[in-house]
C-alpha cells in the first residue's frame, strides 16, 4: 500500500526537480496539478518565442506578416483561456419557485367577536383604555407583536380556534415582517413550549395539519411538487418577473415545520407519510439559489425531520424519499447538491445520504441497473480514453458512488465491493493523464486520486 501509486511514474520528464524532492512526503496532488498548468502556460510562451525568432531572421519589416503573427499568438492565448475556463463546474440551481399565487385574504371579521376581546369590553378597566370593538384586530396585532398574546394563552392554557387560525395565517401569508415573525414565534412557542420543566399542554381548538403547509407551498409557487422533470423548468431563470420566487414567509414555514417535528413526543401533528413528503420538499428547497441565505435554517429543519421517524420506519421511508427525489431532480450537478444537502452527521442522516446517492446513481443509468455490483462494473468499464466520453457525467457518478459507499457499511461487509470501488478509482486516476485537456478531465482525475488516497490510508 505504501508503494508509490502508478501515476506518480508517468511523465517524469515533466516533473521539475523541486517536485521530486517533495514527492517522498505525500502524494502531491498539488504538484501534479501545478505541472499540468505549467505545461499549459508554457505553450503560448513557446509560440511567442518562435515568433520572435522568425521575426529577427526575416527582417523585412513586413507589417502584414507581423500582424498575422500577432493574431496567431492572440488566438493561442484565447484557446488557452478557453481550455482553462472550460473546467468550471456548472452552477447548481433549479427554479424551485415559479409565480406566486394570490395570497389568501387576511381579514378575520370573527376576530372582533372572539372571547378574549369580548370578555374585556364589558370589564370595568376598559374605562381606562376605551377600547372599541372596531379596533379589535389592530389591538390584537399589538398584543401578538409585543408578546402579550403568548402570555395570555399560556395563562388560559387554551388557544381558541379563531386566534389560532388568525395567527397561523399571519405567519404564512402576512406581508409584514413584524407580524409574520411574531406569529411564527407564537406558534413555535405553543407547539414546543420553551419551558420544559412542567410541560404545559395547550388545549388547541384548532391544529393545522400537513395539507395547510402543502397549500402554503403551492401558493408560494412551488414547482417541484409533481414528479416530472420538465426540462424547461430546469433552466436557471433570472428573476425578471416580480412574483417569481418565494415570499419572505418561507422562513416561517421552514421554522414551523422544524419545530413541529421536534415536538413529536408531545403532539403529533404529522404522520409518517407527511414527513416523507416534507423531507422531499425541503431537499428541493435546497436546490433554489434564492434560498441560499436560509440554508442554516433548512439544515436544522431537515435534521428535525429525519429525527421524526421511529427506527424501523426510517429505512423504508428513506427509500420512498429517495425514489421520489430521483424523479424530480435531474441527474446533473443538482443531484449532487441534493445529496450534499443531507448533512450526514448522524447515523440517520448518513443512511439517507447513502440511499439518496444510490438512487440517483440508479437514475443515472436510466433505472436499468439496480444491483450494486452491476453499477460498479459499469463504472469500471467506462472507457475514459474515448474522446466521446462525458467526463462531467463520470465526475457526477464518482461523487454519487462515493457518497453511497462512504455512508454505508457495504465497503466493510462486502470485500468485493470495496475491491471494485478501488479498481474504479484507479481507473479514473490512471486512464486520464495529467496532460489531458478535455473538459473536466482534471476534475475527474483529481477527485479520483483524492478518494484513492483516502481509501489507502483508511
Amino acid at each position, binding site marked *: 500500500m505504501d508503494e508509490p501509486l502508478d501515476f506518480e511514474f508517468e511523465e517524469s520528464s515533466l516533473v521539475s526537480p523541486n517536485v521530486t524532492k517533495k514527492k517522498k*512526503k505525500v502524494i502531491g496532488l498539488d504538484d501534479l*496539478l501545478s505541472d499540468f498548468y505549467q505545461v499549459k502556460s508554457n505553450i503560448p510562451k513557446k509560440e511567442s518565442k518562435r515568433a520572435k525568432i522568425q521575426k529577427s531572421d526575416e527582417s523585412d519589416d513586413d507589417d502584414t506578416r507581423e500582424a498575422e503573427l500577432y493574431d496567431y499568438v492572440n488566438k493561442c492565448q484565447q484557446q488557452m483561456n478557453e481550455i482553462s475556463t472550460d473546467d468550471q463546474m456548472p452552477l447548481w440551481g433549479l427554479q424551485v419557485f415559479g409565480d406566486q399565487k394570490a395570497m389568501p385574504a387576511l381579514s378575520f371579521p370573527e376576530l372582533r367577536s372572539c372571547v378574549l376581546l369580548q370578555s374585556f369590553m364589558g370589564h370595568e378597566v376598559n374605562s381606562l383604555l376605551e377600547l372599541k370593538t372596531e379596533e379589535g384586530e389592530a*389591538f390584537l396585532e399589538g398584543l401578538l407583536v409585543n408578546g402579550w398574546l403568548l*402570555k395570555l394563552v399560556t395563562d388560559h392554557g387554551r388557544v381558541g380556534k379563531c386566534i389560532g387560525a388568525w395567527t397561523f395565517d399571519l405567519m404564512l401569508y402576512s406581508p409584514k415582517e413584524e407580524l409574520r415573525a411574531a406569529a411564527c414565534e407564537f406558534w413555535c412557542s405553543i407547539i414546543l413550549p420553551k419551558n420544559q420543566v412542567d410541560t404545559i399542554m395547550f388545549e388547541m381548538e384548532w391544529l393545522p395539519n400537513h395539507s395547510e403547509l402543502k397549500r402554503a407551498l403551492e401558493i408560494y409557487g412551488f414547482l417541484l411538487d409533481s414528479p416530472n422533470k420538465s426540462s424547461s423548468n430546469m433552466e436557471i431563470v*433570472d428573476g425578471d418577473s416580480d412574483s417569481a420566487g418565494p415570499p*419572505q414567509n418561507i422562513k416561517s414555514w421552514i421554522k414551523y415545520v422544524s419545530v413541529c417535528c421536534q415536538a413529536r413526543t408531545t403532539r403529533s401533528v404529522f404522520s409518517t407519510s407527511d414527513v416523507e413528503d416534507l423531507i422531499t420538499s425541503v431537499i428541493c428547497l435546497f436546490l433554489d439559489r434564492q434560498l441560499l441565505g436560509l440554508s*442554516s435554517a433548512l*439544515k436544522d429543519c431537515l435534521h428535525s425531520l429525519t429525527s421524526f421517524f421511529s427506527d424501523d420506519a426510517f429505512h423504508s421511508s428513506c427509500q420512498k424519499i429517495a425514489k421520489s427525489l430521483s424523479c424530480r431532480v435531474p441527474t446533473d450537478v443538482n443531484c449532487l447538491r441534493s445529496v450534499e444537502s443531507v448533512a*450526514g452527521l448522524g447515523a440517520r442522516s*448518513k443512511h439517507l445520504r447513502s440511499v439518496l446517492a444510490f438512487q440517483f446513481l440508479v437514475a443515472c443509468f436510466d433505472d436499468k441497473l439496480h444491483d450494486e455490483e452491476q453499477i460498479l462494473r459499469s463504472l469500471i468499464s467506462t472507457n475514459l480514453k474515448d474522446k466521446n466520453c462525458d467526463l462531467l457525467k463520470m465526475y457526477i457518478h464518482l461523487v454519487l458512488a462515493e457518497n453511497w459507499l462512504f455512508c454505508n457499511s457495504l465497503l466493510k461487509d462486502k470485500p468485493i465491493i470495496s475491491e471494485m470501488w478501488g479498481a474504479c478509482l484507479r481507473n479514473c486516476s490512471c486512464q486520464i493523464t495529467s496532460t489531458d485537456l478535455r473538459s473536466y478531465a482534471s476534475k475527474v482525475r483529481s477527485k479520483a486520486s483524492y478518494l484513492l488516497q483516502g481509501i489507502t490510508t483508511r
Partner: protein
Amino acid sequence: MEKRKRRGRNNGGIEVNTMAILDTSGFNRDSHHRHDDSLAFLEAVRSASLLPDNGTPPTNTMREAIFQILKEETSLELIVGSYQLLNELDKRFPRVCLPKMEKPESCLPLTILNEVEEAWCPFSLGLDRDEETHKVSSGSIDPLGFHSLIQELVEMINQKSKALETKILRKMLLLHYLVSVLDADFVPRNNAFKEKMSWTLLRDSLLNMLLGSRKIIYKGLVKDCMSVLCDVISDLSDQSESTSDMDSMAPSSREISYNCTAAFALALPELKRSTCIYLEKLLRMMMELDTSRNMADVHGLTTRADGVRTRAAEIILDELAYNSDMISPFFQVFDDPWWKLKMIMQYFQKYIPKASVRTRRSKSPPVNDSTFEGVLKCFSNSSSTKNIIKKIGTEIAQLLLGHAFLAYLSVSAESSAEHVDGFEEIVKGSCLTEICKHIIAAFTSIRKEDKNTEILLFGKEAVFTAASILSTKS
C-alpha cells in the same frame, strides 16, 4: 509499519492535500476557479473531519483558511458555507468541554475542563505585548478588531445602502460566529466556576480576556453593541412590506450573483433578527461574568492583576437613562426575563426618589423597592407617582412597567429553582393576581396624574393582559 508514524504522516497528508485545493500559486486562475476551489476545499474538510465517525479535526492551518473565507469572500455560497462549516466543526470538536458528570467530586478544579491544547481560535488575545508579533501572521481577530467589527455594523446599518448587502451579511455572520465561540467557551467555564469557585477558569475565558484587553474601551464596546441592537430592531419594525425591499434593488448585480439579490433579500431580515439575539447573548454573558466576578471578589479570589471594570449592567442602565429612545427597542430584544426584570428594578431603584421616608411619615407600611411588588406599590399613591413621573417621564415609566410585567409573566411560569443568583428575591412574596391588580392600579394612577397624555399602546396592552388574567382567576 509503526502506527504512530503512519498516523502523523496521514494527518500531514490530509492537510497538504486539502490545502492544495486552495493553492493558486504557479498559475493564474480566475475568480470562477477560485470560487470552485474554495467550495471544493470546504467540502473536502467536511468530508474528512465531520462525516466519518472517527474523523480527525482539521489542522489549525485548515481552520484558519476556512475562517479566512468567511472573512473575505464575496459570494453568498462561500460565506454561508464557511460559516456553517466553522460552527459544525466547533460543535464536533469543542475547545473546552466539561467532563462527564459521573466523575467524582474530588477532581481538581483544573481538570474540570478538558482544554484542547493549542486548538485554533478565531481570537488572538494573548498578552497585549506579544500580540504585535503574532498579529501579522494569523488572520485571527484581536480585541480591537472585534470592537471595530461592531462599529462597522453600526455604520452600515445606518447607511442603508443596497450596495453594502454582501458586506453587511458577511460581517453579521462573522459576528454570529465570534459570539458563538465566546459563548461556547464562557458557559462551561462559568458553570464550573459556580460549582468549584475557581476564578482562574473564568479568568482565562476568552470573554474575560477580550473585555480585559487594554486595547479596547470597554464602555464603548457595550454602548456600540446596544446601538447595533436598537438600530437593527427598529429597522426591522419599520419594514412594513418587505417586498418593496426586493423591488428597490437595482438589477445591477454581476453575472456570478444571478438571483443573488433575491437570496440576500430573503436572508437579511432573519439575519438581522439573529444579530440582535447574538448581541443580546453577548451582553448577557458580560453581565453574568460580572456577577461571577463579584462572587469571586467576595471570596477573595481575584487579584490586583484582574483590574477593575464598571459593571456592564451599569453602563447599559446609564445609556438607557441618557438615551431613552433606546428603552423600547432594547427591552424588546432583551428577552431573558430574569435579567430584564432585574435591570428594570435597578432602573427604578436608581431613579425613583427614595420614597421610604415619605411613606413612613404617612404611616403606611415601609415600601421595599427591591421587590417587584414594592416598586409597583410606589405607584399606588398619587404623590409618589407624581414624583416618579417627574423624574423619569410618563412614557418611560409606562414602558418600564409594561416590560417588567411581561418579564414577570415569563418568570412566574418558570420554575425558579434554576436561578440562584439572587434573582428570585425580586419576585419574593408576590402572587400573580396581586401583581395584576397592582399593574392596573399603577396605570390608573399614572393616567390620573398626567391627564393630557393617553396611555401608550404598550401600556394598554399590559393593562388588557392583566385584566384578562384576573378575569380567569376570579
